[in-house]
C-alpha cells in the first residue's frame, strides 16, 4: 500500500471519528486548510522522493515524533521520510562514515553544533544560500529573521575566516532544530521549605548546593554531567563561560591552564562532593535522571530539559519546579548549543531535503513541536506571553537568550579531538586522579600539538 493511500485512509478515518465524536456537527470537518508556509507554494514538486533523516534520540526530536509532523509533511508533499534515529554520541561516527562514501545515504542530518565546522570545512555539508535564494524552493512565509539569532549563528554559520563564527567568508550551513541555551531549574519545595534564595551567582550556587547536601535529607545539590570525554568538557565549558575561562586565547594558544579555568574545576569538584553518588561518571541521561527522580534539587544545563522535567510521565517532581537565569560570576554568559539540521553534500535529494528542513522549522510546525515538549527556537514563541502560564520557562528563556553566547566553545574542525582530550583531563581532575593544575598541564602540550599540526600556531 502506498503512502498516499494510507494517508487518505487516515484522513477519512479521522474525519469519520470527528463526525462521530462531534455528534455529527458538520462544521467540525474542516477540509480546506491553508497549507503552512504560504498558499501559493508548490509543496508537491518532489512527490515520490524518499528522504532519509538521521536524528538523535533526544528530547526535541522525540517531541517532533510525538507531534506527528513528519507524517504531516509526508501527507502534504507526497515525500516519504525515513527516520534513522540513534543515540547522539554515536551519530558523529555514523554520519562521517556515511558522508565519506561516494553516494550518501542521508539526505538530512541533525548535527551537534560542535561538528558543524568539521563538516562545513570538510565539504561534507551544503551551504544553504543557493537554496534560500531559489524562490521555487523557499517558502514565502518562512520568516528566517524570527529564528533566534544566537541559535542561527551557533548552529548554522561556519566556514569563514573565523571558522565557526560569523565573519568574512562565512556561510549558512544549517538551521537550528533542537537548539538550546542553559538555565537553571530548581525544586521549589526544597527551596521554600528551607528558606533558600535562588542563587544568582556561582558563589551563591556553591553555598546553596552545600546547604542542600548537608541539611536536606536524601537530597543532593546540583546534578551535573561529568563522564570522561565530551560530557566533562561540556560541563566545564558551561561553567567556564561565567567564570571567564576559555579554551584558547585570541592567538589560538591553549588558555585552559589559566587561574579562571582552575577555579572552574574547583567549583565542579565541590559540586561532585555535594552531588548524587557516582556523579563523576554521569552522562547527560544520568544527569537528567538524578533531577527527574528527585535526587538532586538543582539542575543547571541545557534548556531543552524543561520538557522532560515538566512531564509527569518522566518526572517525579514535575509539579514542584521553578526556572531561573544561569547564575553569573565574572560574566553572565550562558551556553548555546544543541542541534541544527543540515544537508549532506552527497545527498541525492538535496532539494526535497531542503523542503523538509524548512517545514520542520516553520513557525506553525515549531509551535506543534514545542507543544509536544520540544525546544523553542523562534523569538515569536519565546516572547509569546500568552504561553507563559503553561510554559513559565519561556519567560526565563527570553531573558536568558540576551546572554546566550555563540562563542562559548571553539568549534574548529579539530574540536572533536580536543574535546575528547580535555574531557579526559577534566574527569581526571574531578575524580581526584590528578590535581586540577596537573590534569590541565598534562594536556597542554598534546592539545598544542593538535593546533600546530592543524596550522593554527607554529
Amino acid at each position, binding site marked *: 500500500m502506498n503512502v498516499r493511500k494510507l494517508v487518505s485512509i487516515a484522513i477519512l478515518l479521522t474525519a469519520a471519528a470527528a463526525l462521530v465524536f462531534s455528534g455529527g456537527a458538520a462544521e467540525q470537518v474542516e477540509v480546506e486548510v491553508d497549507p503552512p508556509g504560504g498558499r501559493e507554494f508548490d509543496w508537491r514538486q518532489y512527490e515520490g522522493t524518499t528522504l*532519509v533523516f538521521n536524528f538523535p*534520540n533526544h528530547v526535541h526530536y522525540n517531541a517532533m515524533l510525538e507531534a506527528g509532523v513528519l507524517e504531516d509533511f509526508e501527507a502534504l508533499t507526497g515525500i516519504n521520510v525515513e527516520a534513522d*534515529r540513534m543515540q547522539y554520541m554515536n551519530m558523529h561516527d555514523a554520519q562521517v562514515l556515511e558522508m*565519506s*562514501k561516494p553516494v550518501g*545515504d542521508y539526505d538530512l542530518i541533525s548535527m551537534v553544533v560542535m561538528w558543524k565546522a568539521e563538516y562545513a570545512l570538510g565539504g561534507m555539508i551544503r551551504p544553504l544560500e543557493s537554496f534560500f535564494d531559489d524562490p521555487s524552493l523557499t517558502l514565502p512565509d518562512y520568516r528566517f529573521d524570527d529564528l533566534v539569532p544566537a541559535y542561527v549563528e551557533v548552529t548554522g554559520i561556519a566556514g569563514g575566516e573565523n571558522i565557526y563564527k560569523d565573519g568574512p567568508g562565512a556561510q549558512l550551513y544549517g538551521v537550528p532544530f533542537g537548539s538550546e541555551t542553559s538555565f537553571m531549574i530548581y525544586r521549589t519545595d526544597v527551596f521554600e521549605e528551607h528558606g533558600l534564595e535562588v542563587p544568582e551567582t556561582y558563589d551563591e550556587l556553591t553555598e546553596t548546593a552545600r546547604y542542600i547536601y548537608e541539611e536536606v535529607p536524601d537530597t543532593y545539590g546540583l546534578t551535573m554531567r561529568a563522564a570522561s570525554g565530551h560530557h566533562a568538557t561540556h560541563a566545564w565549558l558551561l561553567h567556564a563561560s561565567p567564570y571567564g575561562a576559555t579554551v584558547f586565547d585570541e592567538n589560538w594558544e591553549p588558555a585552559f591552564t589559566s587561574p579562571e579555568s582552575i577555579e572552574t574545576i574547583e567549583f565542579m569538584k565541590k559540586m561532585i562532593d555535594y552531588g548524587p553518588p557516582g556523579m563523576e561518571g554521569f552522562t547527560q*541521561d544520568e544527569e537528567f*535522571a538524578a533531577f527527574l527522580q528527585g535526587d538532586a534539587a538543582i539542575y543547571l544545563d541545557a534548556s531543552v530539559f524543561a520538557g522532560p522535567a515538566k512531564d509527569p510521565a518522566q518526572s517525579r517532581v514535575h509539579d514542584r519546579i521553578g526556572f531561573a537565569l544561569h547564575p553569573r560570576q565574572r560574566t553572565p554568559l550562558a551556553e548555546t548549543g544543541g542541534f541544527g539540521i543540515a544537508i549532506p553534500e552527497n545527498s541525492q535529494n538535496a532539494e526535497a531535503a531542503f523542503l523538509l528542513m524548512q517545514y520542520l522549522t516553520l513557525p506553525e510546525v515549531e509551535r506543534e513541536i514545542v507543544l509536544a515538549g520540544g525546544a523553542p527556537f523562534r523569538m515569536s514563541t519565546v516572547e509569546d506571553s500568552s504561553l507563559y502560564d503553561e510554559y513559565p520557562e519561556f519567560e526565563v528563556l527570553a531573558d536568558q537568550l540576551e546572554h546566550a553566547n555563540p562563542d562559548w566553545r571553539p568549534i574548529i574542525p579539530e574540536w572533536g579531538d580536543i574535546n575528547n582530550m580535555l574531557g579526559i583531563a577534566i574527569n581526571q581532575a574531578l575524580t581526584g586522579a590528578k590535581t586540577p593544575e596537573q590534569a590541565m598541564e598534562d594536556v597542554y602540550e598534546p592539545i598544542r600539538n593538535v593546533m600546530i599540526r592543524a596550522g593554527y600556531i607554529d
Partner: protein
Amino acid sequence: MTFQTRRRISMSVKYVMIILWSALVLFPIYEMVSTSLKLPVDAFKLPPDWIFWPTLVNYREVLFESNFLRFFTNSVLVAVISTTVSVGFGAFAAYSLARWNFGGKKTAIAGILLLRMIPEVILAVPVFTMFNRIGFIDSGRTGLILVYIALNLPFNIWVLRTFIMELPYELEESAIIDGCTDVRVFTSIVLPLIGPGLAVASIFTFRIAWNEFILSLVLTNRFTRTLPVAVSLFLTDTGTEWGKITAIATVIALPAFIFTFAAAKSIIMGLTAGAVKG
C-alpha cells in the same frame, strides 16, 4: 565418619556450589529478560518485583515502532548466507587439507591457524576503504557477508578437517576405484559422514555472523544494519528506553538460547576443538 556420609557430604557441597555458580551465571540473563517483560515504570523499581505479570509491551513497541523488522531480516539473511557459504567452502578446503599432500600445505595450515586469530577491528579500516572504493557498501549486504565468510573459514576448515581425518579412507578408495570423480566422492560419501562436524561449524559461524558488531557498525548503513548495531546505536541510559533495549537484546540472544539447549554437546565439541584432543 563412614565412607557413605563423607560421600554424601561431598556431594551436597558439590550441589551447593554448582547451584550458586549457576545462579551467578544466570542472574544477568534473568535481569535482561525480566526487564524486557516489565512495564517501563516498573523496570527501575527498587526493591524490584520478583514476581510480576509479564507484558509484551516493549516487544510490541520495538516490533512496530522502529525498523526492527528490517534489521532482523538483515541479521537473518547475513547469518544464514555466510554460514552456508563459509561452511561449504570450508568443507571443500578441509577435504583438500585432509586427503592430499601438496606443496605449501604446511604453510597453508599455519596460515589458517594464524588467520583464525585476527581481531575483527583490524579489518575495519582496510575493509571499509576497499569496499567503499568498489561500491560494496552501497550495494548492500554483500560486503558484510563476504567478511563473515572469510572470518569463519579458518575455524571451519580446522574443525572439519579433524572430522574428515577420522573417517576411514577405505570408503572413498573403493568409490574412486569405481570411477567416481573427486567432487562426487566428497559430496556423496564424505559430507554425509561429517554431519556432526558440519553442525559444529554451522553453529559457530552463525554465532559470529549473528553476533558480530564492530565490522557491521562500519560496513552497514540504515538499510543493511544488523541487530547488534541497531541496538547499540540506540543504547542510552534513559529510563524509559531500557525496556525496549532489553527486548531487542533478548531477541539477539534467542539463537544462543536455542543452540545452547538444543546442541550443547556440539558447542562444547567446537569450543574444545584444537585445544583438547577429543
